[in-house]
């Protein structure tokens, strides 16, 4: 079997002592930021991006990937114990996970979340390995029209996932696209919206925008809300779930894994959409839906499996098509570029060690996470007690250093303050910043492909619906919109975001 020999090659690369070390570092950091509310994987990866200059490309990617899926594990811990989603993808876990904790069954909830995630991670890793090659071949048939439609699908998915009003999310996406166009136009060499500022001739840096919107703005918002003390007195109980728990949870874990794996592949999908969809389906399938929200173990098992599967399979579009499906993957593009790797279908053939090594490291990382999360749960619980007033100046310092270290530019640090204030205003106006960031990344790519497609079609816009693949992608975008306005999905979305 070719697949297994390739995976073996990957394990060979990933199992070197250095790479194991970076994998452990990544998943530990990921768990850490996942547990701590107020700092997420986007900000963390953005901060550490400049620090990966000096490392081997594979080690750098292994560590950054570890942060992302590690955060999925960590996020569930704070969701279950203190009803605060450490990560946005753990929002639904709060509903039943915290209800279980209030009944003194926090241990079982944590246990099933970790084991379910591990199972899902294993399946998703195999899936990436199996799907990568056929998808990369499919990608070779992609023309500019298909790439454009794929990005439309991604943006629609981002809009659908946003917290609150759909129309505002669309506006945020469009604004993001526009901000992404700032800088030199590659086709004509015209500098757009740069106002003669040299730092703007390449546009705003991704780190500047993401740190401003997610780092600085969040801190301001949290401080304004007032610093809450999260004290929990419930005992955690036994970590190992009972036989009855396993019996109730194995089917939801399977369904969650399946759903998460599929939804993760969609651009704009990934962990958040997966966990929402999984929760909704479990509630639909349950004999007694009223148990949900009261501590149903299915309501923890399925979304946790789904968000981990989704986090892993969201690497598929990045690795095979070169398209970042979400903000974290956009940062991974940045990391690859730093090392001179252009993401896309050619990575697999030109750098097989890197490609398969990264995939193998994901499984290793998942194993490390189970070991980190179950026996060491006490450490993470203690971490939850670190007060925010000590935490936020530290986060702020790391943000500043992260932004400055990209280009040693103090002007960019000042720009980040601007985005911080903009982000804060948007939070106050209930406009979620995530779609803006995705639009910002996809803006130049989208324009490029739109121009090429229209040039090939001699100015005829019907090219997007007359080419089969492009039409299929656009229909998927439409279907996604329709599914998400269905009443039952909307309800979960509302309940979950209501907890805020």
């Amino acid at each position: 079997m070719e697949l297994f020999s390739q995976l073996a090659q990957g394990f060979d690369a990933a199992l070197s002592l250095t790479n194991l070390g970076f994998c452990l570092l990544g998943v530990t950091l990921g768990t850490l930021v996942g547990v701590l509310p107020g700092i997420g994987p986007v900000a963390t990866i953005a901060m550490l991006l400049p620090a990966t200059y000096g490392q081997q490309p594979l080690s750098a990617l292994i560590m950054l990937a570890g942060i992302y899926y590690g955060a999925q594990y960590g996020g569930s811990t704070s969701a279950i114990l203190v009803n605060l989603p450490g990560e946005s993808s753990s929002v639904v876990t709060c509903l039943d996970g915290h209800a279980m904790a209030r009944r003194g069954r926090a241990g079982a909830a944590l246990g099933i979340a970790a084991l379910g995630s591990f199972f899902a991670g294993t399946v998703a890793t195999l899936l990436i390995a199996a799907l990568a090659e056929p998808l990369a071949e499919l990608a070779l048939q992609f023309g500019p029209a298909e790439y454009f439609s794929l990005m439309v699908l991604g943006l629609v998915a981002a809009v659908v996932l946003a917290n609150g009003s759909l129309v505002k999310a669309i506006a945020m996406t469009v604004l993001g696209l526009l901000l992404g166009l700032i800088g030199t136009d590659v086709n004509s060499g015209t500098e757009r919206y740069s106002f003669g500022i040299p730092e703007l001739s390449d546009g705003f840096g991704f780190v500047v925008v993401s740190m401003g919107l997610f780092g600085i703005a969040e801190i301001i918002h949290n401080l304004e809300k007032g610093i809450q003390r999260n004290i929990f007195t419930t005992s955690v109980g036994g970590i190992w779930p009972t036989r009855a728990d396993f019996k109730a949870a194995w089917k939801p874990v399977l369904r969650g894994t399946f759903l998460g794996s599929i939804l993760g592949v969609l651009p704009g999908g990934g962990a958040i959409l997966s966990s929402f969809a999984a929760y909704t389906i479990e509630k639909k399938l349950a004999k007694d839906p009223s148990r949900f929200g009261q501590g149903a173990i299915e309501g923890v098992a399925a979304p946790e499996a789904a968000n981990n599967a989704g986090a892993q399979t969201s690497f598929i579009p990045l690795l095979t098509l070169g398209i970042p499906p979400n903000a974290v993957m956009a940062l991974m593009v940045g990391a690859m570029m730093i090392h001179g790797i252009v993401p896309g279908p050619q990575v697999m053939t030109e750098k097989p060690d890197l490609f398969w090594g990264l995939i193998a490291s994901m499984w290793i990382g998942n194993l490390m996470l189970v070991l980190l999360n179950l026996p060491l749960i006490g450490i993470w619980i203690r971490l939850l007690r670190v007060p925010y007033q000590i935490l936020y100046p530290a986060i702020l310092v790391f943000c500043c250093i992260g932004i400055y270290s990209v280009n040693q530019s103090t002007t960019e640090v000042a720009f980040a303050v601007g985005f911080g204030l903009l982000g804060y205003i948007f939070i106050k106006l209930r406009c979620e910043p995530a779609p803006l960031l995705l639009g910002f990344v996809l803006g130049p790519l989208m324009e490029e492909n739109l121009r090429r497609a229209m040039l090939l079609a001699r100015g005829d816009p019907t090219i997007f619906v007359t080419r089969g693949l492009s039409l299929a992608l656009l229909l998927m975008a439409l279907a996604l919109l329709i599914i998400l306005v269905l009443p039952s999905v909307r309800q979960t979305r509302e309940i979950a975001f209501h907890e805020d």
Partner: protein
Amino acid sequence: MISRHQPFRRDRLAGLIFAAFGISFAALAAHYPIGTSMRMGPGYFPMLLGVVLTGIGIVIAFSGGRYYDSPTDASDGTSPAPSQRWRPALLISASVLLFAVAIESVGLALATFGVVAVSSLANREAHWPHVLASGAVLSVISVGVFAYGLRLPFRVLPF
């Protein structure tokens, strides 16, 4: 206290901000060559998006709060007096700007300390001995990790 009209006003403001961005981007795009739909110039796509954004902004502003989200919102329940509300925004911004000024003139160690000190002013319950201690500890950590560990070419000390 939350006024009953707040979500409505919030949407109006959000819509107007979006429309303002849209109009500005579109107006500036008019200075760049637009081109044709077959050969798009640098102004085409931004012009298109600017017009779309303006349209969406107007819809949000004038749809009469139809799209407003959850009417009850815990985070707004206890908003402090207006003079206090901008305190975190101002002080956090100031601390980051201070870092920008300080990093090249007095170096990483003092810049870090400055960020911790100024940003802690935003927390009214700050306990100053703790702030000074954590500022010192963070200075040591950031110099150790970033300047020596990762060998980033930062100025460390003022002399």
